[in-house]
């Protein structure tokens, strides 16, 4: 297991920032989500061995960040949320510098810096000082600096912040490529649930320093049944009757969002189209019935608020809508 946290607790004075966090991050892309102040940044610092834990332990590829932080950091690449650069360095110098700090020889560091910047589509902008670059370009440089030493685990904090839609899609594509084609483990801390749903295999929800939800996206957004949801325009009651007549088990969705049905094979799907035709129902989509991740997120937050109600240290930190 690339990353394993067991009962990780971190306190700053009387304030508990991480409270017994236990989570496993397998290879692939894992989304770390949570409201502001949930403890995501502190968790990343704990993984890097930058903070001393009050209790619990972390293991990165079996290494303990508390005892061998440098060995751990050699296997990690980090893209911080905040702008960070070494004043006076150009984009390519910055990436080369990051590579050299990670132990690459000078010439090799320069070659590798250009290679990853090419992959990030950095263009000639790489020769300008980092402070003068656009937000999107700075994000590319930060990403290139994080992966230049070919780390096994890449941690990204809000990697799509400030990116236009095209660049955002390209950045997410790079993450998927790193995970799928090169077997990297990627931990993405973000607020953008759409990104999490589109690229992540797993999700960890952190609220007030505690893990409230962890599991695969399919598990978390799926329903208990293997139903499909048929959406479109037309009389749903008549559609249900026609589907039943064609031997397909169906019912109207309680939330009013179309019809839920079971279609186990191709013949059943064919019957669905015939039933829709007979009922005069214009089909817009037929897909596995999944809950939006946002609904899962909000439900988990509400559950966390309810569970924490009355805890003195959590007073005034509720996320319930006013």
């Amino acid at each position, binding site marked *: 297991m690339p990353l394993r946290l067991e009962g990780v607790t971190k306190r700053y004075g009387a304030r508990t920032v991480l409270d017994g966090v236990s989570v496993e991050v397998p290879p692939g892309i894992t989304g770390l989500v949570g409201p502001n102040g949930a403890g995501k940044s502190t968790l990343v610092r704990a993984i890097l061995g930058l903070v001393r834990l009050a209790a619990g332990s972390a293991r990165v590829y079996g290494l303990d960040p508390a005892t061998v932080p440098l060995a751990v*950091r050699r296997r990690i690449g980090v893209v*911080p949320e905040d702008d960070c650069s070494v*004043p006076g360095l150009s984009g390519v110098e910055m990436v080369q510098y990051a590579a050299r*700090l*990670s*132990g690459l020889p000078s010439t090799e560091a320069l070659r590798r810096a250009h290679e990853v910047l090419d992959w990030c*589509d950095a263009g000639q902008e790489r020769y300008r000082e980092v*402070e003068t670059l656009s937000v999107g370009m700075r994000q590319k440089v930060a990403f290139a600096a994080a992966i230049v030493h070919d780390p096994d685990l890449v941690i990204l904090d809000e990697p799509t912040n400030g990116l236009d839609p095209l660049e955002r899609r390209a950045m997410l594509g790079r993450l998927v490529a790193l995970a799928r084609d090169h077997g990297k483990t990627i931990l993405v801390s973000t607020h953008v649930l759409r990104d999490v749903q589109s690229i992540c295999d797993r999700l960890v929800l952190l609220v007030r320093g505690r893990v409230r939800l962890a599991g695969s996206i399919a598990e978390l957004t799926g329903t208990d049944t293997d139903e499909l949801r048929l959406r479109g325009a037309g009389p749903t009651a008549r559609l249900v009757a026609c589907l039943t007549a064609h031997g397909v088990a169906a019912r109207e969705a309680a939330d009013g969002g179309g019809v839920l049905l079971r279609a186990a094979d191709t013949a059943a799907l064919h019957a669905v189209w015939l039933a829709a035709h007979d009922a005069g129902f214009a089909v817009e989509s037929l897909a596995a019935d999944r809950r939006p991740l946002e609904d899962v997120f909000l439900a988990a937050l509400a559950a966390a608020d309810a569970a924490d109600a009355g805890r003195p240290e959590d007073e005034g930190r509720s996320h319930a809508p006013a």
Partner: protein
Amino acid sequence: MPLHDVGYRPWTGTPRSRGAAAVIAGTGIRLAFKSRWLRRVLLFAWSPALVFAGGFFAFEQAVEESARGEPVSPTRRLDNFGTIGALVADSLGGRLDEPEAARRTVWSRLLLAFMRAPQAVLLAVVVGLVAPKLIAGDLRARAWLVYFTRPLGRTDYILGKVLALAAIVGLVTLVPALVLWIVGVLVSPSVWVAVATSDLPLRIVAAAAAVTLPTVLLALAYSSLTAESRIATFAWFATWVACWIAHGALTGADMAAEAARAPTANRGFDRLLGQVAGDPRLPRDGRPPLGWLARAAGLERTVDRWSWLSLYHAQGIVQAWIFGIEDRLAVVLPPLLALLAVALVSLVILFRRVDAPARA
């Protein structure tokens, strides 16, 4: 898509586990030299070396003329270098009739005067230009996120910054002093002078280290305390000037008290007028012709009780001790301890501050 995009490829090399400090130092030096002002100040900082090189040449000329039996005296017309050399030797307590002993004495004192008088002041300027940005700039640009997410620790970071600044300081103190010694050897009558004075390069290195270590650590400690390099620059120069003023005021008060006790002798104010007394090696009435040079060369025999208060004066006395010119423990110990304390406290501040944002 760029022409050279080969996609993402794994890196199969073996990373070095050491050398991060050297990488930080190299980059720090390269970035510092982007400043036009630093390049100008460094160029200017070498100009006193030309004057002192002239002093070495003049002294060796005087030694040579003396060896030939030519009369070399400060009372002669100042129409050749030998005469100036005799003045230098006279001021620094070197007797030309004993050339070997005189050479050791005069060279040591010339080197000390060079490192103490112009270079120590120029060093403060150079450090004030470079040091504040080294760590404060990193804090401002949040560069600590670049450093401390990589396989390097506080020691590597601090060592890298210290090496970067020390290398630049070395260009003002160590390198020109070593060049002066080489010039001295080249203008001397025999290359064997290099062997006879072979301890001087080591003393130069030690004296440069005595200057470099506390100043560099103190300046970096200031830099680590703020993200605004201007504040660190102000603190650096304010410390330098305030210590100097405090030292001057207390020394002046001592001299005034001394003058009040013995108004006829008035030795305290004599010192202010450039007269140096008390060294048995000095000629005639103990008043050397080049009083400022003698003072810079540590020939003042009065005890400076307040030297530990001022970085400049403390370093001067420790350097005089390293060059073998000052040998009184009561004089050397307070400034030596003060410099050690400055270095230690600065080091503690640095270790506590450099990765504080990463730990917060």
